[in-house]
């Protein structure tokens, strides 16, 4: 009799556990699958957590030599790896010959290298993948719409006009457009420093743009991800004191009203089986993602592929910029958290550069007025010393 009662109890506990498992199994992303051995959180969701890096290099866009091939041959890989390693020997340098004269050791060769200390280790490994972009088939960002092509050409012409007559620009007199406002919300490094708005986004510490792809190459970026049942919180360290926090709420709320525009958009996450899907809208005119501005729409899919790999896939669409949407996949690698700490940014807090640049330009204008120096409009202060 006591055995029967104990049996009933055991049965009840098993039944209860089953109900718990089933109930949780109905919620996408909460379905356990121990047979795969993939990492899971205590509440059964795929565990996306860790510090993730981009130490294996994959270009965003595919070099034309690979055509529609998504992967390279052993031979191509060996050559591309040798090229990468050669470049890594002289980070930030440009030792190419100029007009038949040796470039090695010239000012041009070393002008950008002073800053390399801050950029971290170069990716030493090279993926067999020929591009992050997997759609369209040529691995390249699709053609611009006529409207976007004009918008971008107008901006390029504005930038070129302000460089006209300087060492970094086309020949000619000082452009009559010298005092024109920028045709867009400027994020580029304009050859002018009338005010902070003339300087690039990085110089104003805006941080990198859209947090769906970590820089490879120049910036060896890392991302730290912390996860709970109702949010995923990411910190992107994008090098040189620029880092930012980005929280994806896991919710079924609608997007913010369309008049609300955010630099990094309005992300909303939900689980589709084992993939975290993040829908991002409400970008602002201060956003610039490969030419797309406030009408950008991104769908990001984050999936833990195995213990050491996090796959981040995103599809970018903007009918006012591209003739079709495009999709890229970046595979991030796990970093040893026992030895690695992601540090806070602090770009704005230490941004004496922007102030110094404005002070210096005003001083140069004063010197020119007093006949002590050249017209600042004839100097190139835009094309050297950085990524922009």
């Amino acid at each position: 009799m006591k055995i029967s009662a104990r049996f009933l109890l055991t049965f009840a506990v098993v039944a209860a556990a089953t109900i718990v498992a089933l109930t949780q199994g109905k919620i996408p992303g909460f379905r356990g699958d121990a047979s795969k051995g993939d990492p899971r959180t205590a509440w059964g969701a795929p565990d996306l957590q860790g510090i993730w890096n981009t130490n294996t290099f994959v270009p965003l866009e595919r070099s034309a030599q690979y055509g529609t091939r998504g992967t390279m041959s052993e031979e191509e890989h060996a050559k591309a790896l040798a090229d990468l390693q050669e470049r890594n020997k002289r980070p930030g340098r440009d030792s190419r010959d100029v007009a038949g004269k040796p470039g090695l050791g010239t000012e041009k060769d070393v002008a950008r290298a002073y800053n390399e200390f801050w950029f971290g280790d170069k990716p030493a490994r090279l993926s067999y993948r020929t591009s992050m972009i997997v759609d369209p088939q040529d691995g390249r960002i699709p053609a611009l719409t006529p409207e976007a092509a004009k918008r971008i050409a107008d901006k390029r012409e504005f930038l070129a006009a302000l460089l006209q007559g300087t060492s970094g620009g086309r020949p000619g007199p000082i452009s009559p457009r010298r005092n024109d406002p920028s045709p867009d919300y400027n994020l580029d490094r304009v050859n002018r420093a009338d005010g902070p708005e003339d300087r690039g986004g990085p110089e104003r510490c805006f941080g990198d743009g859209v947090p769906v792809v970590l820089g490879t190459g120049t910036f060896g970026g890392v991302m730290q991800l912390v996860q709970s049942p109702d949010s995923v919180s990411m910190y992107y360290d994008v090098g040189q004191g620029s880092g930012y926090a980005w929280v994806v709420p896991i919710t079924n709320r609608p997007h913010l009203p369309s008049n609300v525009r955010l630099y990094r958009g309005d992300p909303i996450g939900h689980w589709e089986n084992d993939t975290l899907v993040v829908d991002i809208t409400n970008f602002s005119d201060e956003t610039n993602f490969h030419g797309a501005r406030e009408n950008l729409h991104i769908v990001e899919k984050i999936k833990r592929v195995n213990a050491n790999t996090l796959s981040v896939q995103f599809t970018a669409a903007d009918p006012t910029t591209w003739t079709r949407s495009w999709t890229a996949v970046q595979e991030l690698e796990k970093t040893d958290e026992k030895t690695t700490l992601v540090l806070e940014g602090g770009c704005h807090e230490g941004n004496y550069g922007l102030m110094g640049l404005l002070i210096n330009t005003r001083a140069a204008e004063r010197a020119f007025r007093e006949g002590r120096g050249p017209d600042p409009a004839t100097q190139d202060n835009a094309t050297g010393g950085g990524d922009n």
Partner: protein
Amino acid sequence: MDSRSIWRGVFLAVGVVAIALAVSIRMTGQGSTREGRMPGGAPNLNGIWQAMNTANWDLLAHTVRPAVAQPGVYANHPVLAAPVLALGSVGLVPAGPGVVEGNEIPYKPETAAMKRDNGEHWLDRDPEVRCYMPGIPRAMYMPYPFQITQSATKIQMVFAYANASRTIFLEDAPKPPADKWMGHSVGHWEGNTLVVHVTNFNDRTWLSRSGDFHSDALDVVERFTPLSPDALRYEVTLTDPNVYTRPWKMSMVLYRQLEENSTLMDFRCLEFVEEPFLGHLRKNQLVKHWEGDTIVLDVTRRVPDGDKKYER
């Protein structure tokens, strides 16, 4: 078979199933009540939180006063001064009963003078005015929300203000190689209380708009204790022998936002502080009253037409 035993078994079984269902519903967040605990038993701190007090203006008990003051008719009744003069009621510091135990911050005589001087030059010196990272504990009681993402090994807090953030490590983490604005946080659970030890501060952050400050020797211990699923007791002890004569303690409550559309939106102050701090360096100044590097504000407030009829 003893029927009483069977009924006892059935009763227990039904009870266990009911508890399991309840737990299941709460854990998945599908029920009407928020789950109070994480799987594994730790209190659930996830959500968007905010202090509802006036600590960021003044940690001690205080009545309403101008944010920037000039002498009025009575010595102890200052009036609003530029640059907040035109703001009227919006330019006032809201009153509050204070958050400091004993209502006293134990400054040394020389640091007490520094705090008073800071308070008098608040607009020139407060790192908050410059959109700098606020540090800990100030980030916890600024009048803006922050979001907690809690896992078993880390707790990430992201603050709306200035996109500041902090990671609380619940497991071993390397020590930072340099001081940080937000410090380095290492936490552990003591029963229902999250205890966090914060070190590696720089000396650049403040504690309030009243000039309260610290040095890079600051050592902070925070205690987060749930009062309910939607409220946390937040206690923080500050030790800094360079500035204070003894450790001192603040205590307050943090509240969870319950709005259906609650979401963390950036308080992106970065580009808005360019004008006050770099405006004098423009080629063509937007504010026409810079004198060198000093901003001179002429406050113009026309008496509205509607009021004039009462002034005849």
